[in-house]
């Protein structure tokens, strides 16, 4: 690695790079600090002319109220369960389907890949009405099974594309070698390719998790019992049409965001190496 000489021009470039990164990091983080500020503000005030991060008379009352006086923990538990199930099914289905689409030239393969993309093109709001009718007919209204299936289907197209893209980068020679060593196709997949695709699996898991964790519209239609609510629905409860409990809402929003932020934090390096929608030629 040839170390370049540190010239004035280069120093300028470095300073500029840091300045731009800092600017964008600020822009990325600032709205989140707003939520922090609102959550710490006493009373239900959304607005203030102050730009201070910690408001006057800051208090943790909203957080205390959130955990002790609302069903927040219950909703948290519901959301965790639903999201984990969706993650597990999402990973299982996307990893297998992606493998088939990456490796085998069966008839209709191209159509299937396009078809997955096509599912993203229809305005989701119009699917609500027919889905509702179906869920009533199947008696899946107000049950987790209904939303889990819907969430999995929502997350799958992206995940399959993404898994397929990653498998494409894994040399076929590896499976061929495994087959020669006497592995069945299934074993070649699970023992050789699957572990190698770990970074992509992490992305698939993360994406599935987020789909379920953040979804509001479908849950709002399907779940009708406060005790069964997921977090986004619960949060919405703090928001009335005329009077909003902004403090509670902001506190809740922060608590909802923390797990996802932590996941991103932990997984950010797999995110970079694992997110391959297209064939990387490298």
């Amino acid at each position, binding site marked *: 690695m040839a170390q370049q000489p540190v010239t004035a021009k280069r120093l300028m470039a470095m300073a500029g790079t840091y300045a731009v*990164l800092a600017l964008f990091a600020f822009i990325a983080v600032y709205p989140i600090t707003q939520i922090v500020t609102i959550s710490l503000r006493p009373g239900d005030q*959304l607005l203030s002319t102050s730009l201070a991060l910690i408001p006057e008379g800051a208090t943790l009352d909203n957080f205390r109220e959130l955990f002790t006086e609302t069903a927040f923990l219950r909703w948290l538990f519901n959301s965790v369960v639903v999201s984990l199930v969706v993650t597990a099914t999402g990973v299982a289905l996307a990893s297998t389907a992606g493998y088939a689409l990456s490796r085998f030239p069966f008839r209709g393969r191209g159509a299937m890949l396009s078809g997955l993309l096509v599912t993203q093109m229809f305005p989701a709001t119009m699917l609500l*009405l027919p889905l509702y009718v179906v869920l009533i007919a199947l008696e899946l209204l107000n049950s987790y099974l209904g939303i889990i299936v819907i969430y999995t289907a929502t997350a799958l197209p992206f995940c399959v594309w993404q898994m397929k893209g990653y498998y494409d980068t894994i040399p076929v020679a590896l499976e061929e070698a495994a087959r020669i060593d006497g592995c069945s196709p299934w074993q070649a997949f699970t023992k050789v390719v699957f572990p190698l695709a770990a970074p992509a699996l992490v992305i698939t898991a993360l994406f599935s998790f987020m789909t379920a964790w953040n979804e509001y519209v479908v849950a709002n239609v399907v779940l009708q019992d406060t005790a069964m609510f997921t977090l986004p629905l619960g949060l919405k409860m703090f928001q009335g049409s005329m009077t909003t409990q902004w403090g509670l809402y902001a506190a809740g929003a922060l608590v909802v965001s923390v797990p996802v932020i932590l996941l991103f934090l932990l997984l950010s390096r797999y995110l970079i190496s694992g997110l391959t929608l297209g064939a990387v030629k490298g």
Partner: protein
Amino acid sequence: MLEAKPTTAGLEARERTKEQAGQGAPVASPDGRAAPRRGRGEAWRHRLFLFALLGPTVAVVLAVVAYPFVYNVVLSLSNMNLYHIRDWELIGFAQYAAVFQEPAFWAVFLKTLIWTLVNVVFHVGIGVFLAVLLNEKFVRGKPAWRVLLILPWALPQYITALTWRGMFNFEYGAVNLFLTKFLHAGPVAWLTSPTEAFIAAILTNVWLGFPFMMVVALGGLQSIPQELYEAADVDGAGAWRKFRTITVPLLRPVMIPAITLGVVWTFNNINVVWLVSNGGEPNDQTHILVSYVYEAAFQMYRFGWAAALSMVIFGVLFIFTQVLLKKTNATEAAY
């Protein structure tokens, strides 16, 4: 997560194999091509294997998408509205005609195109720009920068969109406070004038969307061999030239699918427009097609009309992606 350990090993293994194998060949098949030469039992087993791999996914996606889609096609040919919510009947293509005759349709369509184009251009522009900066060797604390810059993606959209709406408030919003206190500019009536409200929605969505493109670009950049840049350095190429001749062409195959998806998602992203503009304010001037669908269906109960409009949206996107994918392949074949 549970997968942490094998993942690390897998990553290293992958790097190694890639080096050994050189150019990984996508979509070549030991099994499929050989299948006809093997026995019939083998072929059946192969088919079964394929079915096991694909079946569940196809079933789940079809279950959730196929019936509603067909239902919607039927609705779009019907007169279902407030008066005929139970006893609706098929009336042919009248709803489609009504969609195209709607005076606001073309304006909203144009707005949707602007919305999509501006958003995706900025998503990709900012995303790639930041990725290139982050990929510089001298930058310290990369993981920390990365996490900070990814944050907008991590937060639920319905939360951040509402936060941004608050930030665009005329008197109390952070945006105007910044403008007046630090830039000594006049405050902007973000949410009450049509153009500004639309810009506010776009700004919000740009903020939400650039991290995804950045991450995709970062992944792509890592697969570009460093030696290419070093060779260019030897030739005395400037940063811009290196970007244009090495980064752009090698990043393109990674970015095109992401851009395709980005276009589809942005085109159909109702959350941001709806929440930032509070349902199209002012005067229904901040609608894109999907929010128009929502309004027609759930505020005016024009289900037939809304279904026809959503079929139109579907058609537009379908044709667009087919063209884009065709183009993509053309470019891929070029090198």
